[in-house]
């Protein structure tokens, strides 16, 4: 079984580029160039240099001793939270800004939900001196004021998405419309492993640095490159794609994908796409998505704004369908509890998205000798208000 994208842009039956003709020249330009550009030694050199000197890579692979003791297994945390701007999102934006420059683009657009990807995009635009426009749902702008301020300080223009449900999916629609209206000078930096081909694959390749590092880091720690499990939370699926990438075809490595169950998978307030979703087309991609029987896309819910997406990247739809990955759903309450536990046991305040991945240890028993690597995709600074309100701190 192949878990990578095929030459037509599909992962099994998922993926493709279901885009209006107006987007075709842009997406086609990217499709024809992305692998070539990424393979250029100059590109590689610049990308790796920035990841090292600017982002602060490699991010540590940390053996969480007290957490491991508590769950009687060996838990390693891949510390993406220690990256510049506080999450894995910057790996992708560094890669894509270099891609945009190679393609001669002068104007950058992006969508953002919680603001993490918006901040990571605004950051690299400032670094490269490129114009940056970030679309953000009107409701999210109100919920995520600190990140809006960060983007503005970094020189980006934040445009409220006023259509539909005024959250992440609508911000994505607005970014796509902007790209239709500006087909020549603009590059769209998508923030997750979603969208039309080649985006899911390109984003995955930029995030693949995560598992590339895990391999040699684990070798240093354990004398072997392959853990027994890799675990990551899934919004659109970019930190997960990066965490799994070099293990997809290693059958001895189990893959666990953690979705947000919100108030409960059957509560009507959930973002557990692999359970609640059906095959369909969202944002140019055939994948699993939450929708009405009539094919209207519905609004997901999670306490974590970064997992609040009605679809899932096509690679993950394929991993779910083929059974290569085990999908678990974690509720708001379970995630918040796991987040606080990491604070107390390890002195690390995780992003609520990442807390979902940590919460599986209450749900699933691992063997004492198992080596479990969890992607700690981001830090909790941005979520402080949520933690304060939830725990009445």
């Amino acid at each position: 079984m192949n878990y990578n994208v095929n030459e037509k842009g599909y992962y099994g039956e998922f993926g493709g580029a279901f885009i209006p003709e107006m987007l075709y020249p842009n997406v086609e330009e990217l499709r024809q160039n992305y692998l070539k550009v990424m393979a250029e030694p100059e590109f590689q050199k610049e990308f790796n240099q920035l990841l090292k000197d600017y982002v602060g890579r490699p991010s540590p692979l940390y053996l969480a001793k007290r957490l491991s003791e508590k769950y009687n297994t060996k838990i390693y945390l891949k510390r993406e939270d220690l990256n510049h701007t506080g999450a894995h999102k910057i790996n992708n934006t560094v890669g894509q800004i270099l891609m945009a420059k190679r393609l001669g683009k002068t104007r950058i657009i992006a969508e953002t939900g919680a603001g993490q990807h918006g901040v990571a995009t605004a950051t690299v635009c400032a670094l490269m001196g490129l114009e940056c426009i970030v679309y953000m749902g009107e409701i999210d702008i109100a919920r995520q004021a600190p990140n809006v301020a960060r983007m503005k300080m970094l020189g980006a223009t934040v445009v409220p998405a006023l259509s539909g449900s005024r959250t992440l999916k609508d911000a994505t629609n607005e970014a796509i419309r902007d790209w239709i209206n500006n087909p020549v000078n603009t590059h769209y930096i998508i923030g997750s492993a979603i969208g039309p081909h080649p985006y899911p694959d390109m984003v995955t390749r930029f995030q693949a640095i995560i598992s590339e590092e895990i391999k040699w880091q684990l070798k240093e720690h354990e004398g072997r490159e392959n853990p027994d499990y890799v675990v990551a939370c899934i919004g659109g699926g970019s930190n997960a794609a990066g965490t799994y990438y070099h293990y997809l075809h290693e059958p001895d490595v189990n893959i666990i994908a953690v979705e947000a169950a919100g108030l409960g998978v059957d509560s009507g307030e959930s973002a557990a796409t692999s359970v609640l979703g059906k095959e369909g087309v969202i944002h140019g991609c055939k994948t699993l998505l939450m929708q009405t029987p009539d094919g209207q896309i519905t609004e997901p819910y999670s306490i974590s704004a970064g997992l609040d997406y009605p679809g899932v990247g096509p690679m993950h739809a394929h991993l779910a369908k083929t059974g290569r990955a085990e999908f678990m759903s974690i509720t708001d309450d379970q995630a918040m509890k796991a987040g606080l536990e990491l604070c107390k046991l390890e002195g690390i305040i995780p992003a609520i998205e990442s807390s979902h991945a940590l919460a599986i240890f209450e749900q699933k028993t691992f063997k004492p000798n198992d080596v479990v690597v969890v992607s700690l995709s981001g830090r909790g600074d941005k979520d402080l208000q949520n933690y304060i309100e939830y725990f009445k701190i």
Partner: protein
Amino acid sequence: MNRINKKLQEDKKLLSIYFTAGYPTLNDTVSVIQNLEKSGVDMIEIGLPFSDPLADGPTIQASSTQALKNGMTTEVLFNQLKDIRQSVSIPLIIMGYFNPMLQYGVEAFCKKCQEIGVDGLIIPDLPVDVYNEEYKATFEKYGLINVFLITPQTSVERINFIDSISNGFIYMVSSASVTGSQSGFGDEQTKYFKRIADMNLKNPQVIGFGISDNTTFTQATQYAKGAIIGSAFIKHLSTKPVHSINDFVNFIVK
């Protein structure tokens, strides 16, 4: 012969009107169609509303949101159109996004269209190659014309390919934009209109996006077989009663 092909053979410039089904109120669909035909319009695009219309500007987005709130669904639309051929003979095209069609079942959707007497489909996010490889046979089985879009950025090669697999008309998007975001055509657009006209394609072209009045209609049809009006008509419907559609059409064609 398909009603669209027959219409395209007429020796006149065609006015095609887009409206969103179930807007302004759920049950306006049929009377909007009847009034458009009575007013002398040549073709109608019935918009099947979608929650996430990527290629549409604010006017059509808002009408889609309203129509969905009103209760419009694929099933409701097909029910409303059940007897439409008893009252109108104008070519009817359904324009919608791919996901609702996929959920209904592409074959079931096409079959229903044939039963009702729908003549063609425009699905902006169904890519040319996917249509060609997976759905062309189904569309043809049910006698449906599929209409493709081209834009000022579409390469000559691709236009020729699109022309080769089209069997009705080519929808020329007037400029690089979502629907509704134009005010008048400049040099660049007329150059593009002329460039395409000079290609002497097998399929006639109909220009859409940004046509809102007599001037833009006349400009577009100087180079193309017809023109499509969407947002400007939706704006009219949002404030004026359905029986005043005639005024709108007279204002366009004078």
